[in-house]
């Protein structure tokens, strides 16, 4: 039997999902709480959502964050996948292996301050450019690349080269082999890596705060708002970010069709 029903495993997964969603449930519920405080229920209201929709600063910041996360993920996936191939196939260097993990290891405040100092010297003072979303994207890609590379590498390690040889024996070019043989097999790795990079960028505060100049990403907005308490308005905004991201993902999934050909 290929797939036995493993009830403990399924229940365990169910519990894990509950664990993950418990605070989400709380914050969604609180976003409808008429009383501003999390400790008392003041009645059901959609007022906070209305206020949120009026709050241009909040909405702008959410939009900015999606842009940053998108581009940071794109850069991370491309450069990270290339790097993974390079580390697995083109060189064998423990030094480079270790180096590829360094971005994850540098404390984010250090990277943030380092980047701002650097940007200030090179871009602001020398080139006269202002900082904005682009400077955040560059910073986020720094650690995004490392995560994508690490994940894609685990995928490459078990790679069956006989499929590549077969493809080449049959006369395919290197690009064709890559597109139709290699890529589908490492697909799940790339997806997993992209999800990690996207998720990390979406909620990243420290680097964004220091390198965004005067632009505001959603985490920056939230961090400055919670100084005065987590109003349900913030919960409403957080709920909306999730819903929008979910919709985008679902659209992407539908366009992709079934997953048959990916590994």
């Amino acid at each position: 039997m290929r797939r036995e029903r493993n009830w403990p495993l399924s229940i365990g997964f169910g519990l894990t999902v509950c664990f993950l969603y418990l605070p989400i449930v709380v914050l969604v519920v609180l976003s409808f709480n008429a009383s501003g405080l999390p400790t008392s229920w003041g009645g059901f209201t959609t007022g906070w959502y209305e206020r949120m929709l009026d709050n241009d600063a909040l909405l702008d910041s959410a939009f900015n964050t999606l842009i940053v996360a998108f581009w940071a993920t794109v850069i991370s996936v491309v450069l990270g996948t290339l790097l993974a191939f390079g580390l697995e196939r083109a060189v064998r260097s423990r030094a480079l292996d270790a180096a590829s993990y360094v971005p994850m290891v540098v404390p984010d405040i250090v990277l943030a301050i380092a980047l701002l100092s650097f940007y200030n010297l090179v871009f602001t003072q020398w080139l006269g450019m202002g900082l904005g979303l682009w400077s955040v994207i560059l910073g986020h890609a720094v650690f995004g690349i490392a995560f994508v590379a690490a994940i894609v590498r685990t995928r490459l390690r078990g790679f069956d080269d006989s499929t590549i040889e077969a493809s080449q024996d049959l006369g395919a070019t290197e690009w064709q082999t890559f597109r139709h043989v290699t890529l589908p097999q490492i697909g799940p790795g790339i997806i997993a890596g992209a999800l990690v990079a996207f998720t990390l960028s979406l909620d990243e505060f420290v680097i964004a705060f220091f390198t965004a100049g005067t632009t505001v990403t959603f985490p920056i907005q939230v961090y400055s708002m919670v100084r005065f308490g987590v109003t349900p308005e913030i919960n409403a905004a957080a709920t909306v970010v999730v819903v929008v991201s979910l919709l985008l993902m679902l659209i992407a999934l539908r366009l992709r069709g079934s997953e048959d050909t990916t590994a």
Partner: protein
Amino acid sequence: MRSARSSLARRGLLLGPALTWWAVLLAVPVALILAYSLFRRGTYGGVVYDLNLENFERIVDPIYLKVLWFSVRVSLEATAAALLIGYPAAWFIATRPKRWRTVLLVLVVLPFWTSLLIRTYAWMVLLNDQGLINEALTGIGLVDAPVKLLYNEFSIVLGLVYGYLPLMILPLYAAIERLSPELREAATDLGASPIRSFLTVTLPLTRSGVAAGCLFVFVPSLGNFIVPDLLGGGRQSMVGNLIQTQFLEARDWPFGATVALAVIALMAIVLWIQARAVARDREEGLADA
């Protein structure tokens, strides 16, 4: 087996972009900041360029070692917990029908597209003495009085596990998913118990996924400052708080750089262990059966 085509051009194309990115945006800026550890803080912040090693003497103070040790211990606990929860979860997803896998991955990752800060505040609501969890526990009668679930080590570990669980699940998924079911069955067919088959066949084959997942949880946990501040009630600082306070509150960049160096050095050890796991994977020439 392994491609021998490592021409310079090919290497350049593959390694070049990422390494250049890191050279310009990581290595140089960070090295400059870390170099501050050799200097001194100015009276009102800023750096006095007066070469000395005082910071390295300062950091060997028991207070900082205590913070470092607490951070390492808590991060290890969080990593272990994340592994115990994450591996079965990743396994579950990887063994579902193909069309479900991405959906399940998204399901797992989706909460993390909400601000972690907001979710942490939600946990504070859940965990405090009058919170939902205590109400449930006392309601069922499991306990007589509210259990202290907040502002202690438990809540810190919980916060860290919660914050980094998807970073454990995703690489594990990538590693488990590529295993062929036949391999797992072969072990059982040969008479190994499910546990034995798991421990001697499956787990080692997913070793690099486990290593990646553990790294992805351990490292950010070590540098986290939000969780000890909020869920820990600011009562127990971790190394992330230490670095934050040095750079921002004390405005002592030289010493902050020194602490960061210490953390990075510690991480280098962890990385080295991880790199060995990777190297062993390679040597054993992993391939599907």
